[in-house]
């Protein structure tokens, strides 16, 4: 971890990777938190987009 933080370019790449992981985790948690009806509406909205 120290080696990543000593390099600014590696820190930025790590930040981007963490952002991608956060988006995946957010989608997973939002799906888990939704009830069946909410999920059906959400899926429909995504299809319309």
């Amino acid at each position: 971890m120290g080696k990543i933080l000593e390099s600014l370019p590696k820190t930025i790449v790590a930040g981007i990777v963490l952002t991608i992981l956060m988006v995946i985790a957010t989608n997973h948690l939002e799906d888990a938190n939704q009830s069946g009806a909410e999920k059906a509406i959400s899926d429909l909205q995504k299809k319309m987009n």
Partner: protein
Amino acid sequence: MEDTILFLVRYLHVLCGVMWIGILWYFNFVQIPSMPKIPDDQKPAISKVIAPEALFWFRWGAAGTVLFGLILSYMNGYMHEAMTLQRPDIGFGMWMGLIMAFNVWFIIWPAQKIALGIVETDADAKPAAGRRAMLFSRTNTLLSIPMLFSMISAQNATGF
């Protein structure tokens, strides 16, 4: 009236956030990489004048960002849901912001006081304190990338 207050709180949250992250990125993108290139006799201009002034606005920018951000989340009624990750879109960003502000006040600022000679300590303690401040400042730079993504996408994006 409540909408006006909500707008002002959000405006202050963003202003403080720009101050905080702007100076964080100044430290990491400009000052730290430039220090080895500056002649030794000119380094006190940075360490005695510019850095202490920047650190003042840096830490109070962090405090203001967190204060107005928490007020905003309370007024909007999502504070509990966000902090318990029932609303992870904004919750992840809030947690990262809180960790970053903790780093500023309880790790970076105490270490910088030693590294810059604002408090008197052994000369041997200065390099270690400087390295600790740099590594936690870099940690905050790393966290700022997903934190800002979370803050902006929760407000503006759909489909994430």
